[in-house]
């Protein structure tokens, strides 16, 4: 039984260690509290001390209590106990980052004005000490009129002392801090407080004085909206008059900042000593370069180039490994299917292995991309990238607040769109939501890498590889189209003024292997889950549409052709044997055929290996000549060994090989005709005229259409469609090779570099993600935006692919 029950609010700037302090105080006794009407959420937890039970409300990190959006007003509302379902706090814990004392104390002065019993948790003392900063905790406490407790949450230090201080403080009434504002300013606050208190019946609560102060300084925000709604024009007029009187021609925000920082400056001067006052830290020195307009941007571009280069340099062997693994697993699965079940065999081979297996091959590339992102994030570099980009965004009418969701959209547009909730301006938020799907998400990576690996040569350009450069360029395609889109929206229907953006640049730190590993496990897991669920389901559906209906007439026609071809070969073999004076089942003849077969197979392997090994043409020619000479010598040796049986054996081997080739051609024709007659084929032929100008045939068109629910599906769809169409290479099951060998109706290569570029541009720009459109609908509360995004992006993708194909073809690609 707990005698005492209290509620305490936990407040602080972002990145002050507030969340780890909350966890250290409450352990696992946490739950999420949703605040009605806003999108932010707070955590509620319980801390126990002696016979007290303290409910702690962990409020979202904030730099100030100034509220431009309902989300930012939550901290004030929660402090005053006005959030339904959340208890009114009896006190407050203010978290202060010792290494950034002034800025943290700014919020503290605003909170202390409410007069709630307060305890200060001083965090990051180790960081401060490493910078030569010493804080006199007792002096600081005296200045603030509150107990200051140094804490180190990860090590559990100071937590019990904090609980004890809290316990003591909660039993003593708090005293509101008085910030020395100018007299006229204070009188205006008092008058405004009186005016808003007159509205308290209509408002449903009695506003506190610090709220009136905020209203006077900010002159806008959700509290102003509420007051204006009940007080009407009369209230707005009063506020305007009081603001003019308090300001007397100066900026109210500046007056507030000067008064608060003046007070803070006095406190800090007494409580803090620094060994290297005025010296620049290592982080400052590095930042001078990394956030420099020219050098920083250059380093950012080179860094990104290196990331994309590594994707190609490192992923190859890993992909080969997965390919081999998928192939072996597929072989095992197929061995379980009886020979008289061709449909089940095809479902497994073409649908599951050719479809889902083809997607899994791209796991290493996803992991390499996220390895770099995780390292750069943990290092603290991403904030610098956001800072750099803030400059680029301003001419577009956007700011750093938009950049963070857009940067996040390079991984996935969904959290990016949800991240736009931090943008208080509606029009800027809508613009950012509209731009998010333009950023190349990780689902596009497999599409790019498949086509780049297959159709872009591996040439080196200076220190870079052409494939890596093309991949880097693909990531910019969306950005290039997003820029004019933003300009049109922000200067047209979504016009708004730019609001200031404050972002903290955290100190650099060594990336933690555990944190990086966690990102990789989560990211890899999400990719595999997607391949195993939605991609798997769509691959099966695509397979069924490409398999059914089976036209009996086509099957019969080709079966008869195969039987005729086989009969012809058997007849030729019998005639050759008879003419040479051998019986059909002669052992010497059979042995000679086997030897020739084995020797030819070995020779073909040697030729293929040489082609892979030698890049230089002269060297390759010499190697091929050498192997051919060895083959001729081995053949002569066989002739000497087998004597009279050699000549007919060679003729029989040739007849059988030609027969096998003829059967393969018939089977390929049969598979092609069956696919063309399937539901997918019929629909594909109907849409072919629309995709023909993009350089696509109906099979690519259908694979692209199947990818509208989720864009990675194209890999699985292409695998299934081309395998079912009899395009798979007998020696290599890799989709890359299947696509390289695919032919159009005239027998020409279906894919050229121009086709590959056209497909990639289409995928870079198209809105092929149902989940993103759904989130867009939810966040904008209207179908207007997702429909506009879908129509706009799909049209842009079509036009982009068309221009790319036509220009690339004209240039001979």
């Amino acid at each position, binding site marked *: 039984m707990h005698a005492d029950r209290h509620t305490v609010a936990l407040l602080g700037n972002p990145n002050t260690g507030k969340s780890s302090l909350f966890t250290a105080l409450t352990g696992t006794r946490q739950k999420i509290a949703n605040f009605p009407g806003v999108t932010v959420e707070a955590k509620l937890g319980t801390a126990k001390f002696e016979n007290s039970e303290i409910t702690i409300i962990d409020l979202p990190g904030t730099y100030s209590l100034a509220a431009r959006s309902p989300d930012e007003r939550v901290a004030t509302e929660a402090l005053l106990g006005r959030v339904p379902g959340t208890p009114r706090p009896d006190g407050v814990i203010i978290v202060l980052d010792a290494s950034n004392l002034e800025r943290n104390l700014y919020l503290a002065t605003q909170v202390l004005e409410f007069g709630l019993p307060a305890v200060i948790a001083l965090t990051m003392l180790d960081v401060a000490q490493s910078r030569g900063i010493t804080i006199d905790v007792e002096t600081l406490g005296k200045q603030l009129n509150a107990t200051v407790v140094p804490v180190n949450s990860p090590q559990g230090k100071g937590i019990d002392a904090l609980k004890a201080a809290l316990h003591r403080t909660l039993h003593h009434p708090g005293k509101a801090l008085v910030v020395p504002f100018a007299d006229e300013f204070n009188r205006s606050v008092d008058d405004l407080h009186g005016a808003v208190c007159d509205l308290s019946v209509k408002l449903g609560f009695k506003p506190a004085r610090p709220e009136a102060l905020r209203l006077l300084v900010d002159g806008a925000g959700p509290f102003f909206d509420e007051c204006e709604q009940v007080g009407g024009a009369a209230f707005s007029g009063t506020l305007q008059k009081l603001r003019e009187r308090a300001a007397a021609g100066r900026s109210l925000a500046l007056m507030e900042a000067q008064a608060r920082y003046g007070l803070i400056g006095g406190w800090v001067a007494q409580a803090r000593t620094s060994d290297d006052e005025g010296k620049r830290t290592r982080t400052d020195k590095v930042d001078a370069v990394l956030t420099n307009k020219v050098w920083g941007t250059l380093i950012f571009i080179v860094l990104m180039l290196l990331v994309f280069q590594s994707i190609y340099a490192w992923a190859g062997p890993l992909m080969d490994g997965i390919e081999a693994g998928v192939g072996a697993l597929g072989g095992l699965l197929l061995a379980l299917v009886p020979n008289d079940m061709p449909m089940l065999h095809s479902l497994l081979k073409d649908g599951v292995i050719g479809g889902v297996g083809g997607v899994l091959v791209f796991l290493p590339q996803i992991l390499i991309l996220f390895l770099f992102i995780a390292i750069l994030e943990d290092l603290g570099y991403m904030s610098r990238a956001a800072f750099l980009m803030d400059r680029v965004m301003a001419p577009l009418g956007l700011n750093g607040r938009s950049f963070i969701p857009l940067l*996040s959209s390079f991984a996935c547009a969904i959290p990016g769109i949800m991240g736009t909730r931090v943008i208080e301006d509606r029009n800027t938020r809508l613009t950012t939501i509209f731009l998010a799907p333009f950023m190349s998400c990780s689902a596009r990576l497999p599409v790019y890498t498949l086509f780049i690996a297959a159709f872009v040569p591996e040439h080196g350009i200076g220190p870079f590889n052409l494939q890596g450069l093309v991949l880097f360029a693909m990531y910019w395609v969306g950005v290039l189209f997003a820029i004019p889109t933003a300009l049109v929206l922000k200067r047209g229907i979504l016009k708004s003024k730019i609001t200031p953006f404050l972002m903290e640049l955290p100190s650099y730190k060594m990336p933690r292997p555990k944190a990086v590993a966690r990102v990789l496990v989560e*990211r890899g897991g999400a990719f595999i889950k997607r391949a195993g669920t939605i991609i798997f389901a769509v691959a099966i559906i695509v397979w069924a549409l490409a398999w059914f209906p089976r036209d009996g007439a086509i099957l019969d026609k080709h079966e008869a052709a195969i039987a005729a071809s086989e009969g012809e070969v058997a007849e030729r073999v019998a005639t050759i044997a008879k003419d040479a004076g051998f019986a059909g089942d002669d052992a010497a003849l059979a042995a000679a055929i086997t030897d020739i077969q084995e020797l030819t197979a070995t020779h073909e392997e040697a030729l293929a290996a040489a082609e892979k090994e030698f890049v230089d043409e002269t060297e390759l020619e010499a190697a091929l000549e050498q192997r051919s000479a060895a083959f001729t010598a081995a053949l002569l040796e066989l002739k000497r060994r087998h004597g009279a049986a050699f000549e007919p054996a060679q003729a029989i081997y040739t007849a059988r090989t030609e027969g096998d080739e003829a059967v393969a051609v018939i089977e390929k024709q049969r598979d092609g005709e069956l696919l063309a007659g399937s539901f997918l084929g019929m629909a594909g032929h109907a849409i072919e005229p629309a995709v023909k100008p993009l350089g696509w045939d109906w099979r690519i068109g259908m694979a692209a259409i199947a990818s509208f629910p989720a864009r990675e599906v194209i890999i699985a769809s292409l695998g299934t469609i081309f395998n079912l169409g009899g395009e798979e290479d007998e020696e290599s099951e890799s989709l890359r090779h299947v696509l390289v060998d695919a032919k159009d109706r005239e027998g020409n290569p279906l894919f050229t570099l121009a086709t590959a570029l056209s497909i990639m541009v289409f995928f870079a720009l198209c809105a092929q993600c149902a989940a993103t459109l*759904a989130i867009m609908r*939810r966040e904008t509360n209207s179908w207007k935006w997702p429909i506009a995004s879908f129509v706009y992006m799909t049209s842009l993708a079509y036009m982009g692919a068309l221009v790319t194909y036509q220009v690339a073809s004209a240039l001979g690609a």
Partner: protein
Amino acid sequence: MLEYAIVATVLVVAAVFAAWRVWRTLRVSQGKAQGHDCAKCPAAMKVE
């Protein structure tokens, strides 16, 4: 017969799953389902 039964079962499961995903996506779009938890999403890039 067995072959048809296996293939039909796989197809039905895939179709039901796909239909469920469509239904859930619509519910998410109307805010009736969670759909995506931003805080837990491994794809969310954390910019401090």
